[in-house]
């Protein structure tokens, strides 16, 4: 990224050195305490700040500083509602199960979530199914996060080599795998605290800068409400490639204007470029038929379309065309950058004959539900309800958050952490909307593919002319997404290795394993898992990419009810818990299965699949428990009576 300064790189390097130092301190502690409990659980000794920040940083994955600002940029204020349930997320995710889960884990001596389930129901089968489910969903998630981490490094250090991605991935992997496997859970928690502070500080610093430099939110909102409609195209290049310089932005400058822009692929070869539009029809799209060669291949480029529209007798007076960010090809002539414009060809996959892009009005960024550039509503009523359930309720059941709930020291720690995280989330998520909305006016137009650069562009562009201390703060903000990715990755990495070492090896294959051997196996497993994921992330298989979108929904649907019923309902049987886990798992896999074949997922009744997964899991858990009850009285006595 051209905007990256040397200060940013120094901040990045200092940050990474800091992470290594924390891993070193943490490793020293490992030799003084019971290895497994310390390595995977920090000896159940997390204090308030550690619990609060490790919790906040782990749940705020890379998405919080990439995907979320990107969505704010694309859909506007409706994102406040999209993220709205975070107002109660800390209380729900930590308060509902925290204390009880911690108690149950202490009673059983469990150090992982599959461990808890296995002991609560005295069922090795349930423990193994839980481990398998967790690894299945977590690996696909990790591959995506490794990829994201590598892209951030590539962008920040502006690497130009043909192997830039591979080199960045290697740097990312070495850093994360080293400090996670060397330092264990405590290193992960300490870096989470550091990363949590980095993220929070980034937002707090940026608010006054953005509001001051852009004339404030009030002005931005009013201006946006009156902004004329515009359509942003997002067309892939050959074989689905991105960044092929073929996208355009159509601004409406007068009325009547088209309702949108349609690119059509003609059936006949050797067709010239042509434009049809009925000016008297408000709903009419400007239909641009592409030129084709003798073989029927489209030859029209973005530049051709721009010229044709400018030459059109009616459209030329109502549309103005510009190139979105990074979508005009530039070359160097005598050390000066010269724009060549949108030189990329408009590419159609085999079975596609048209692209349609709607004109989005400024006021659509002020009201719900927001619209995609293809014209579809973004946050419908069904999704509104689903997301309120998803963040708060399914958030409870992510193994990476639950494991933190069995690691804290005492009730007072939990209480203070809930208060801290509640305030922290309030300070981050709402202000981020204000930052992006206020800064829109100083940003270039971003296509949906590029919009996840919004926050980095804001941080770099607004502080570039300020003094060095501000630039350092801007650089810290650029490090925030990286910090968020790292804090999610390290936790997931430990989840997988703890499953393998504790649940599979120590408790199933070799219960008499020595402490020394456990140590070696733990280090090795964490490192090997990291290396394996790095290798997969070099060339991520397509199906794995598609699994990512449902990994957190799958984890929630598989783990919430077995755990919740297990700790709060005496009547839960081991068969019921197993049915709840498998029911949630298969419902999610079934509803998301069409995405593996390029089709949209199944939203029954307009609701997100995770809701259906939870309903299926709860129903099966309760019904099967009733049918197979009563549960083992020894276990009921152990976990529910004094």
């Amino acid at each position: 990224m051209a905007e990256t300064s040397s200060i940013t790189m120094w901040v990045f390097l200092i940050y990474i050195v800091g992470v290594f130092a924390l891993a070193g301190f943490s490793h020293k502690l490992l030799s003084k305490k019971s290895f497994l409990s310390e390595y995977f659980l920090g000896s159940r000794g997390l204090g308030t700040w550690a619990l609060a920040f490790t919790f906040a940083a782990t749940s705020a994955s890379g998405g919080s500083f990439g995907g979320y600002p990107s969505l704010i940029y694309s859909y506007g204020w409706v994102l406040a509602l999209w993220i709205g349930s975070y107002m109660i997320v800390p209380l729900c995710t930590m308060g509902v199960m925290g204390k009880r889960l911690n108690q149950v884990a202490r009673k059983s001596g469990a150090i992982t979530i599959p461990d808890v389930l296995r002991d609560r129901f005295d069922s090795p089968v349930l423990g193994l199914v839980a481990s398998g489910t967790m690894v299945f969903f977590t690996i696909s998630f990790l591959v995506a996060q490794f990829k994201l981490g590598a892209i951030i490094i590539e962008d920040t250090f502006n690497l130009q080599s043909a192997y830039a991605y591979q080199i960045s991935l290697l740097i990312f992997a070495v850093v994360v795998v080293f400090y996670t496997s060397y330092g264990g859970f405590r290193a992960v928690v300490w870096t989470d605290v550091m990363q949590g502070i980095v993220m929070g500080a980034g937002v707090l610093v940026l608010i006054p800068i953005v509001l001051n430099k852009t004339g404030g939110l009030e002005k931005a909102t009013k201006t946006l409400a009156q902004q004329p409609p515009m359509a942003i195209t997002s067309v892939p290049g050959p074989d689905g490639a991105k960044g092929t310089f073929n996208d355009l932005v159509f601004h409406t400058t007068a009325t009547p204007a088209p309702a949108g822009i349609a690119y059509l692929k003609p059936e006949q070869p050797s067709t010239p470029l042509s434009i049809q539009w009925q000016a008297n029809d408000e709903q009419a799209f400007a239909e641009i038929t592409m030129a084709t060669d003798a073989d029927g291949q489209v030859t029209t480029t973005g530049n051709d379309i721009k010229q044709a529209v400018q030459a059109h007798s009616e459209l030329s007076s109502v549309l103005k065309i510009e190139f979105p960010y990074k979508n005009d090809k530039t070359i160097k002539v005598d050390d000066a950058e010269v724009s060549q414009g949108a030189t990329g060809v408009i590419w159609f996959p085999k079975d596609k004959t048209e692209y349609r892009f709607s004109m989005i009005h400024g006021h659509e960024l002020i009201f719900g539900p927001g619209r995609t550039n293809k014209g579809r509503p973004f946050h419908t009523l069904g999704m509104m309800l689903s997301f309120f359930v998803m963040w708060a309720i399914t958030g409870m059941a992510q193994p990476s958050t639950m494991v933190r709930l069995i690691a804290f020291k005492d009730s007072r720690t939990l209480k203070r952490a809930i208060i801290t995280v509640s305030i922290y989330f309030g300070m981050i998520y709402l202000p981020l909307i204000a930052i992006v909305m206020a800064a829109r006016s100083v940003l270039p137009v971003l296509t949906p593919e590029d919009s996840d650069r919004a926050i980095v562009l804001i941080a770099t562009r607004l502080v570039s002319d300020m003094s060095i201390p501000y630039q350092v703060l801007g650089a810290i903000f650029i490090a925030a997404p990286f910090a968020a990715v790292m804090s999610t990755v390290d936790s997931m990495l430990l989840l997988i290795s703890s499953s393998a070492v504790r649940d599979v090896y120590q408790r199933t294959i070799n219960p008499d394993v020595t402490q020394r051997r456990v140590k070696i196996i733990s280090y090795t497993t964490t490192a090997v898992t990291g290396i394996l994921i790095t290798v997969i992330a070099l060339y991520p298989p397509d199906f794995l990419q598609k699994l990512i979108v449902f990994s957190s929904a799958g984890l929630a649907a598989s783990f919430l009810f077995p755990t919740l019923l297990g700790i709060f309902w005496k009547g839960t049987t081991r068969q019921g818990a197993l049915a709840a886990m498998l029911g949630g798992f298969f419902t999610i896999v079934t509803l998301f299965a069409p995405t593996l074949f390029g089709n949209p997922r199944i939203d029954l009744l307009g609701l997100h699949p995770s809701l259906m997964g939870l309903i299926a899991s709860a129903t099966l858990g309760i019904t099967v428990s009733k049918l197979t009850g009563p549960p083992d009285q020894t276990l009921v006595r152990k976990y529910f009576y004094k």
Partner: protein
Amino acid sequence: MPGQQQDPPAPDSDLVEDPIYLHTRREAKIILSMWLIAMIYTCTYCYLFGYSTHPSDPAATGPAVSSLVGPLESFDRQPDSITTPLGLGIPDWVFYGVALPWLVCILVSIVFCLTIFKEDDLESVQQVINTTPEGASHG
């Protein structure tokens, strides 16, 4: 939790239910009720006052606003009707539907933690090597 009246009978009538279990169950019920109230208020308010219908797009799939309710012409909003309370620049429906309840939720979370949440003693809960739960003692 489901069917408490059908819970299995206490294994031994002289046993006392674990106080931490009872406290956490009560706290969980209160928290989930608070979540439900927050969801009903925020979603209802925002839907009624923040969602306007949009010019229909021939290529878009599904109705403009919701597949369950459909367009809400009666609640349609025009861009010039937008107000920004307290001059903060936050659209009114976001301010009253999300920002304000968010603030209330933070305060309620703090009050809940300071008054309702019990500081149960977790550190004295005995750890048990759980290889044979039948024979294991409990805390």
